[in-house]
């Protein structure tokens, strides 16, 4: 019995070690633990009292993310470790997108998949801090880069998978990645 317990513990330790090659850790943090620069920026973009803050630590370093709902839309604002803005993402509906963009996106998806279904659309805004503030408060569109991030279910010859597609301001495909689900054994069995 002792041998069995020892072997199980050894096995556990091996699994633990093998997991240390890729490191990603995200946690909810309080307002006080967020760089002041990031807090100030968010207060200039969205007037909402309910802002949730997250800190992500990975092999690439530390980043911060603010999530909130403002004027009926979901906002996700990302910052680097110093609190410098990286981008603002706003969840949108398919019909909110301009007609030409929609057409380009559809063409691209139809070329890639036998069948697809869009699950989530986010418009991504990136620029310097003052340009983003100008855009969101005064609708002045200077030096703003707009991209479209789409999560979709796609069917190819190899089966159905969930993907994240990134399109540029014209709706031309920039990058794709397959979304990997968390292990589901503890829900199935």
């Amino acid at each position, binding site marked *: 019995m002792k041998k069995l317990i020892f072997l199980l513990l050894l*096995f*556990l330790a091996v*699994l*633990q070690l*093998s*997991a240390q090659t890729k490191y*990603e*850790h*995200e*946690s*909810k943090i309080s307002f006080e633990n967020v760089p002041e620069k990031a807090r100030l920026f968010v207060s200039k973009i969205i007037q909402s009292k309910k802002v949730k803050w*997250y800190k992500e630590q990975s092999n690439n370093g530390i980043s911060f993310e603010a999530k909130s709902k403002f004027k009926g839309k979901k906002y996700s604002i990302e910052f680097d470790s110093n609190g410098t803005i990286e981008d603002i993402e706003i969840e949108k509906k398919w019909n909110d997108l301009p007609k030409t963009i929609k057409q380009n996106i559809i063409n691209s998806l139809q070329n890639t998949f036998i069948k697809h279904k869009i699950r989530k659309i986010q418009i991504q805004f990136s620029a310097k801090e003052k340009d983003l503030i100008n855009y969101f408060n005064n609708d002045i569109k200077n030096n703003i880069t707009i991209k479209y991030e789409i999560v979709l*279910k796609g069917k190819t010859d190899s*089966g*159905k*998978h*969930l993907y994240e597609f990134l399109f540029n301001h014209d709706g031309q495909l920039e990058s794709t990645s397959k979304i990997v*689900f*968390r*292990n*589901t*054994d*503890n*829900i*199935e*069995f």
Partner: protein
Amino acid sequence: MKKRYAFLVLFLLVISVSFGQNRYQVGTLPTLNISKSLNNNWQLNFKSEFRQLFKEGITNSTQNSGYDYVHTDAAFVISKKVGLNNKLAGGFLLRFTDDDVIKRSIQQFTVIKSLNSYRLGHRFASDQTFDTDQDMQLRLRYRLTFDLPLNGQTVDPTEWYFKISNEYLNIFKGNIYDLELRLSPNFGYVFTDNNKLELGLEYRINDFVNDDTRQRYWLTIGWYLSL
């Protein structure tokens, strides 16, 4: 959300103690679950459960007994992913009691939805139990499982999560029908995505439509390994 589930657990526990005289069992259910992914979306799963009772009797009565080994299960299930979130599975279980080996065939279909930070799992299952000199027992089951991270939006390694499941079992044996309800709140710890440990409680109630309610309280510990 967490408060709502805590309330539900409390509510069911209050209901359970409000029954008059009924049978009860208190025990432990340690489980080991090992999965191995194969090519073309196939997966093999082995599950072993060791059941022992620490107390058993009738409430408001002096009739009760202490420790008892009940059985050890070994289940082998093969599953195939048939959609983005769906799996079909089938297998068999061997139940080793003191004096017999009970056989059970298992079929199940699962749907798992990942919604922002939490996941919702539906499991539709049926099983047939073959015991010596007894009618075959058929069970039609539905289980709803919900899990969410206790910190942040995703469950990362070295983090805790909360999982709760509620299952309804329609049991047919000969001419007898019974309904069993199960509720199981758990706290889980993720060593890696393929190595998790869950600690929790499982409350089971059956025979409550007759006047012979049986309630079972299990302390559960489950280890999920994926190779």
